[in-house]
């Protein structure tokens, strides 16, 4: 029953999306207000019904209803509850339903709470959102029905990849999805505003919380994914420039550019056409990312199915949406009135450069990601790895950070370049101190990490400058948000640069009782013992790390073996052990047993040890960026504005 109900809800929701779209079009063409009045409630209902269908799918997974094909393929009655629930979106059909749920719920939220826009623009926006939903409804209902029943229910399910049974991974995809799909609202706002030609501060203000909100989720998703890859893969790296990582970074870059340009449009009514264009690009990049991952063009743990029919369907959908939006833009761009003017040396000017650099990095990352696919089509197999990305993105990102130093200290419209220098002495001093310190005491450091740490020093101090001599209690939330986010960039940059400059690595085969020195630590390998986990067995090594001051810590890296289910081969994983210290992290991996050199005494074990200075600053920085964006969003949210206005009115009434 539950599955049939879920499917019915999806069809009704699809019909409502159709209604919103048709009513919206008729209203825009004829001005029929009766139909326009339907669009808001229909959008809300569509969101509620889609979310309910998703809830029912989760219920099927919780109940382990093996008569449903999707549950039978992806779940198992003995799985822990958390992974049963996560199993609902850990597959192609379920993740597409999650995608639709977020599309629907975002549309419903816009319909419920947006009061700043002109009514016709709002209706056009909701109709655009409905059009997006409709395409994905078609995709889900015609080619990936999650509620499909099996003719005969199997006794139990086929389980889930044991590697994916990680609590971090249960929440990583939904977080990224909220980010990916939340930006669809910006796309719809842009389309709506292009249709009604209402492109100005009101439109930008309405769009801004959505851009910030989805960007927060993208930031959190990328940061968490990076940490997951760091501790789970046992390779010691925190970013591999894997295509799947890149397709989450690309919308993030577009979102970062958009949230800066949208504040120019909101505050100064400038860069209007560019902001609209970026909103279209940002969601397009989300769709391209989903397409690349889901179509099986890349083979990795992230791609669920290699199915050419689905790939083609997604490609057509994407072409229609992106092509449609760009065509609309081409027709209307001419009629977008020229924005307010500004000098190059101004806040707006610096944000234009910020946008240029961000979109350039975006284009280069996209090029590196797509190039192997294009080359493959031409018969040449090529892989593009970290050296390419570090070479192109590194220097541009550093220039971007320098622009970030100046931007917040410039006034809107027009500023004096000479005056800028008078605001920077502390920051320049900090940078110089870092640079000299490193050159004098840092030993041999590469050029890029050296510049990275210097720029991080400058940015850290300069990012706090907007608070200088200000009443901190009266400083508006968005200013706090900007300061914290920019400071977070400095923290993350320092972590990245320090890690790559001062990393220490030891790779040895150690016999029990042997000690290894890595940086200041003396690490004693005392031996291994077998242990049994809930669904695996493992060899667990014991390492005792001692600092020069005499403090000692125990680490337990493990080599785990998951038994194969139903005749599949067993899976082995290396579970790294981490010791977090104020100055960085000690990272230990246990490898394979190898015979001792003389062949007589006990086995040695391969040990890989890293000392990674300041490495956790990278994720701390990511978290700070997300917190900053959240404060900024809170400060811009309409609810807060309403609340403030009400309080001000009450205060006035009291005086009157």
């Amino acid at each position, binding site marked *: 029953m539950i599955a049939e109900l879920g499917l019915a809800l999806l069809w009704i929701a699809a019909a409502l999306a159709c209604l919103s779209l048709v009513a919206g079009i008729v209203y825009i063409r004829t001005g029929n207000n009766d139909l326009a009045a339907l669009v808001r409630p229909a959008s809300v209902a569509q969101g509620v019904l889609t979310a309910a269908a998703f809830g029912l799918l989760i219920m099927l997974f919780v109940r382990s209803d093996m008569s449903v094909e999707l549950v039978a393929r992806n779940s198992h009655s003995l799985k822990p509850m958390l992974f049963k629930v996560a199993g609902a979106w850990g597959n192609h059909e379920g993740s597409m339903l999650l995608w639709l749920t977020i599309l629907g719920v975002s549309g419903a939220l816009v319909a419920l709470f947006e009061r700043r826009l002109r009514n016709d623009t709002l209706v056009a926006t909701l109709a655009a959102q409905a059009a997006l939903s409709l395409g994905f409804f078609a995709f889900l209902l015609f080619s990936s029905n999650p509620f499909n029943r099996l003719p005969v229910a199997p006794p139990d399910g086929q389980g889930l990849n044991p590697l994916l049974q990680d609590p971090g991974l249960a929440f990583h995809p939904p977080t990224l999805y909220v980010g990916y799909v939340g930006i669809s609202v910006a796309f719809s706002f842009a389309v709506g505003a292009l249709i009604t030609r209402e492109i100005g501060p009101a439109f930008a203000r309405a769009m801004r919380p959505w851009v910030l909100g989805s960007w927060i989720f993208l930031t959190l998703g990328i940061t968490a994914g990076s940490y997951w890859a760091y501790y789970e893969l046992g390779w010691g790296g925190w970013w591999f420039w894997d295509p799947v990582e890149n397709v989450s970074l690309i919308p993030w870059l577009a979102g970062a550019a958009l949230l800066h340009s949208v504040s120019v449009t909101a505050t100064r009514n400038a860069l209007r056409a560019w902001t609209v264009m970026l909103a279209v690009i940002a969601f397009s990049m989300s769709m391209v990312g989903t397409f690349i991952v889901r179509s099986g063009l890349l083979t990795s743990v992230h791609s669920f199915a290699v199915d050419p029919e689905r790939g083609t369907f997604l490609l057509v959908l994407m072409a229609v949406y992106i092509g449609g939006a760009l065509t609309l833009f081409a027709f209307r761009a001419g009629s977008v009135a020229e924005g307010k003017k500004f000098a190059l040396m101004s806040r707006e000017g610096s944000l234009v450069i910020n946008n240029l650099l961000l979109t350039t990095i975006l284009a280069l990352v996209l090029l590196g990601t797509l190039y192997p696919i294009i080359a*493959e089509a031409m018969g040449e197999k090529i892989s*593009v790895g970290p050296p390419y990305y570090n070479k192109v993105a590194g220097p541009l990102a550093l220039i971007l950070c320098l622009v970030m130093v100046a931007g917040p200290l410039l006034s809107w419209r027009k500023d004096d370049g000479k005056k800028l220098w008078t605001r920077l002495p502390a920051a320049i001093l900090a940078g110089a101190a870092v640079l000299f310190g490193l050159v004098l005491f840092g030993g041999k450091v590469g050029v890029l990490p050296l510049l990275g740490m210097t720029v991080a020093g400058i940015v850290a101090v300069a990012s706090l400058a907007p608070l200088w001599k200000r009443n901190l209690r009266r400083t508006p939330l968005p200013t706090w948000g900007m300061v914290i986010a920019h400071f977070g960039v400095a923290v993350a940059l320092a972590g990245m640069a320090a890690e790559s400059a001062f990393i220490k690595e030891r790779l040895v085969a150690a016999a029990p009782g042997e000690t290894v020195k890595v940086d200041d630590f003396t690490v004693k390998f005392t031996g291994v013992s077998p242990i049994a986990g809930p669904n695996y067995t493992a060899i667990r090594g014991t390492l005792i790390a001692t600092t020069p001051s005499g403090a000692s810590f125990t680490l337990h890296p493990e080599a785990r073996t998951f038994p194969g289910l139903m005749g599949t081969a067993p899976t082995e994983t290396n579970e790294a052990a981490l010791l977090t210290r104020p100055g960085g992290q000690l990272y230990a991996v246990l490898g394979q047993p190898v015979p001792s050199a003389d062949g007589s005494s006990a086995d040695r074990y391969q040990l890989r040890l890293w000392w990674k200075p300041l490495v956790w600053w990278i994720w701390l920085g990511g978290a700070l960026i997300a917190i900053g964006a959240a404060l900024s969003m809170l400060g811009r949210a309409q609810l807060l504005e309403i609340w403030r206005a009400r309080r001000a009115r009450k205060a006035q009434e009291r005086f009157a």
Partner: protein
Amino acid sequence: MKAKHQRLILAAVALCGVAGAGVLGASALRDEAAYFRTPAEIKAGQAVVGEPMRLGGMVAAGSIQRQSDGVTIRFVATDGKASIPVQFTGIVPDLFAENSGMVADGRMLADGTFVADRILAKHDERYMPPQMGDMPKNMKVAPKV
């Protein structure tokens, strides 16, 4: 007039930026993109010594030799037509074994040895380069070299 002038400068700057980025991207791709090669292609001369490269093949039966330091291995990668000796220092992935597929990132030395910085095993669920999918499943394994 002044505003027009300024927009012109801005457009020129943007254009230069885009052109510069294009040049940067193209040159970085030329220098850093790694070609995927099979042992037969390398033997046919399709590899430049010292350039980043990705080698794909089967680990020949009985070819894995562990060096006395315990962390360096030497083995032979083969595609049934030709064989290349490979050297790797590090912890090999769990699924790395004789008679199974692997992909190695690294470079050729002048003496004909491939030095790997990273080894990926076929069927490694965490990551599998797309090229692995194309490798014939019933690839004939060459005799030990």
